[in-house]
């Protein structure tokens, strides 16, 4: 049964390992994956703990449906207090790790303490051991994984590793598995590094009994048919996420030169079709690959076509790398994007954060806020491809003054650089924004301002807001599984109804993250894709657990609330530019200079923005300060946290 997968508490300081069942009543409240991790984080970390101290607790999990006969249950979730933001740290990745961990008997790991020397955790069919990783320390993301397989003598082992960036305590280091499946954002690899934990390796051949196998199989088929019939997924399956670049850049939703422009010009070389051409030339006609059990297969395979890394194999690049190493830095050349993408994969470093900080430093350099003294002679002007590639290496290995400074993250770097450098930093809660520009899309602006892990497009983005769907279609989507009869608008430049859309999406994404399913299988980029109603059936057929769509919604609301409680406990205040639900002044002061006719000139109206946040808080059950009302906490059963049920 999926529900008999266990939780292990591992103390790296003492070597103590405790294996326990996950109580059913806790399951019903938090399901699994990110939701249950959030509960564990709140209950297992002390207020104000240093994220890099042994006291920080690292959670690794699969969802309640991981490795069952549901569609694309490939996601692994990692959570801890973030060394980048000092608030909630959370990362989610595809690949094959979480399913293997489920076949090895586990859904959740809670890792505390710090090992005396580099170690890795090996989990095999219900058993856990801590092993020496001194020989593996220092190796790249992929070399580490192959070395672990050699060490264990098993080519089927799946590993979750931190790379050199994590070892060097780069505050936005990733946890990774496979070639490029990255648990990015908020520095979970840095937490691993701080614990001397190089990797977690798993291998499992334990049965997961499906509650109603025939129905689960048939429903999975129906689910897949629905998912692959969506045009957005067909495009994604052919071109990967780069397909988003073409449309978004053309209307003016891409940050260019940090935040100076909202469109990247002369970018033909990184258009999705061009990237696809390179993939085909270097890997052949069938160059798409997929995560466990997924028929979307959105990940491209490529070899770097030229330059010092010519011929090196990697996967991607994702839309995020096009923006990070092409758009923001104004270096729209394929070889730069593909090489940059490869380097962050190899080092285990967040591509979004890296590109965003480099482009910020470029703007500071051009403004004279930093000079060639701080860059150790590097000509850090926009458009300098070599400088981008060089900076990636310097950040990972903390080389030079600027590399070392940026490795600590945007806010600490701005404090070190001083002057008015902070004014140019495009971040929320200390986490840099994706390369997207939200000045013309208030709904998306609200999403990044209120995201629980900082500026982020994967926590609550109403991406379908860009499709101008008729109001009755919006009502059908956003009026389920709980009724909503407030205003909604098909216009993406409007402020009306967006708070509810953001609230709904926040719960939808929490839902998939609790199940362990990929967001491309729900209402993210595709308006017709499954959500709460389908999940109710999928959970029943696979686990036997009966939950109505409304009950799943309640779980999502509850889990989002516990993330909020954690952030409030660690210092979130509403209008704090460094720790709050607030945007950089540039969103309100600098109008868009490029893009579609209804985008040029747009900026966020601060008054309307504040009203949106008010309304969003109301939906969430928060007061004007963003603090939950006692009534809402009671309703969600969170009035006695920390409750230490586990």
């Amino acid at each position: 049964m999926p529900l008999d997968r266990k939780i292990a508490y591992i103390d790296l300081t003492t070597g103590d390992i405790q294996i326990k069942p996950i109580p059913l009543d806790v399951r019903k409240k938090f399901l699994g994956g990110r939701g249950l991790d959030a509960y564990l984080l709140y209950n297992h970390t002390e207020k104000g703990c240093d994220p890099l101290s042994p006291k920080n607790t690292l959670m690794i999990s699969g969802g309640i449906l991981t490795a069952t006969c549901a569609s694309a249950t490939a996601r692994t979730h990692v959570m801890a207090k973030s060394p980048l933001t000092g608030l909630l740290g959370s990362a989610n990745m595809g690949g094959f790790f979480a399913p293997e961990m489920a076949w090895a008997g586990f859904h959740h790991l809670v890792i505390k303490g710090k090992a005396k020397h580099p170690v890795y955790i090996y989990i095999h069919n219900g058993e856990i051991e801590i092993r020496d990783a001194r020989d593996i320390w220092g190796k790249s993301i992929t070399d580490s994984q192959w070395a672990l397989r050699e060490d264990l003598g098993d080519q089927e082992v799946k590993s979750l590793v931190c790379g050199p960036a994590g070892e060097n305590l780069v505050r936005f280091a990733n946890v990774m598995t496979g070639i490029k499946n990255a648990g990015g954002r908020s520095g979970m690899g840095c937490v691993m590094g701080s614990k001397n934990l190089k990797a977690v390796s798993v291998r499992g051949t334990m049965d997961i009994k499906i509650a109603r196998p025939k129905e689960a199989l048939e429903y999975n088929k129906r689910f897949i048919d629905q998912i692959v019939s969506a045009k957005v997924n067909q495009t994604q399956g052919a071109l990967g996420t780069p397909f988003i670049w073409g449309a978004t850049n053309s209307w003016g939703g891409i940050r260019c030169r940090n935040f100076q422009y909202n469109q990247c010009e002369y970018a033909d070389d990184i258009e999705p079709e061009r990237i696809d051409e390179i993939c085909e030339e270097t890997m052949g006609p069938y160059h798409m690959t997929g995560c466990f059990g997924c028929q979307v297969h959105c990940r491209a395979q490529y070899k770097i076509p030229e330059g010092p890394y010519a011929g090196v194999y990697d996967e991607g690049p994702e839309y995020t790398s096009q923006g990070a190493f092409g758009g923001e830095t104004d270096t729209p050349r394929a070889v730069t994007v593909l090489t940059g993408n490869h380097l962050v994969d190899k080092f285990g470093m967040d591509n979004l954060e890296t590109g965003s900080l480099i482009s910020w430093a470029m703007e500071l350099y051009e403004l004279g806020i930093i000079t060639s003294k701080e860059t150790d002679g590097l000509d850090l002007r926009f458009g300098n491809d070599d400088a981008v590639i060089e900076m990636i290496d310097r950040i990972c290995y903390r080389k030079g003054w600027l590399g070392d400074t940026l490795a600590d993250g945007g806010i600490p770097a701005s404090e070190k650089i001083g002057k008015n450098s902070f004014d140019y930093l495009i971040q929320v809660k200390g986490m840099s924004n994706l390369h997207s520009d939200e000045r013309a899309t208030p709904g998306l602006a609200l999403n990044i301002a209120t995201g629980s892990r900082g500026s982020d497009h994967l926590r609550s983005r109403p991406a379908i807001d860009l499709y101008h769907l008729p109001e009755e279609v919006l009502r059908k989507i956003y009026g389920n599984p709980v009724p909503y009869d407030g205003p909604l608008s098909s216009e993406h430049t409007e402020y009306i109804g967006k708070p509810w859309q953001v609230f709904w999406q926040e719960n939808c994404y929490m839902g998939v993250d609790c199940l362990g399913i990929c967001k491309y299988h729900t209402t993210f980029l595709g308006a017709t894709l499954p959500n709460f109603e389908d999940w109710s059936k999928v959970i029943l057929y696979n686990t036997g657990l009966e939950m109505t769509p409304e009950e799943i919604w309640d779980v999502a609301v509850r889990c989002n609330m516990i993330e909020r409680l954690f952030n409030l406990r660690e210092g979130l205040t509403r209008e704090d530019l460094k720790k709050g639900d607030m945007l950089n002044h540039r969103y309100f002061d600098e109008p868009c200079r490029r893009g579609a006719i209804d985008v040029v000139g747009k900026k966020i109206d601060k008054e309307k923005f504040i009203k949106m946040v008010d309304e969003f808080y109301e939906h969430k059950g928060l007061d004007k300060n963003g603090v939950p009302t006692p009534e809402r906490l009671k309703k969600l059963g969170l009035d006695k946290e920390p409750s230490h049920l586990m």
Partner: protein
Amino acid sequence: MESMGKVLVINYEKCTGCRLCELVCSVMHDGISNPARSRIKVMKWESEGLYIPMSCQQCQDAPCMNVCPVKAISRDEELGRVVVDYDVCIGCRSCVAVCPFGAMSFNTIDKKVFKCDLCDGDPQCVRFCEVNAIEYIDADDISILKKREAAERISIAGKEAAVLQAAA
């Protein structure tokens, strides 16, 4: 019989490596998710992006059938498959040892050998593989398809040569 003479054909170049085939195979046969129970298995070389699904070839002169000391393995001509009679099988695993494709496996939980049975004519791996890396087609058609592909390559090569010649 409609399925008579049909065979599984794997085109590994199309495989995305998602392993859904392994999942649905084990759920279909045992009601359990566990790739260790799957009759089909995707072998991977991740560092090259190479994925090759391996399954039973349903050999005519099957080594597993020949080696079986108790004659528990036979050919089912109706579905064109090699089948194990579990009433006769003694679980000696000689078939596992002798299969040149590694397609005969041993399940350590149920203590039984197991192999692809083509899901009695409706192979689930084929049904779920959206990229058609695994197909279930008439044995006669395979060589025709391959002839067509080869002919296409020759034609393209011819045209490219003509262009080169013209340019020279």
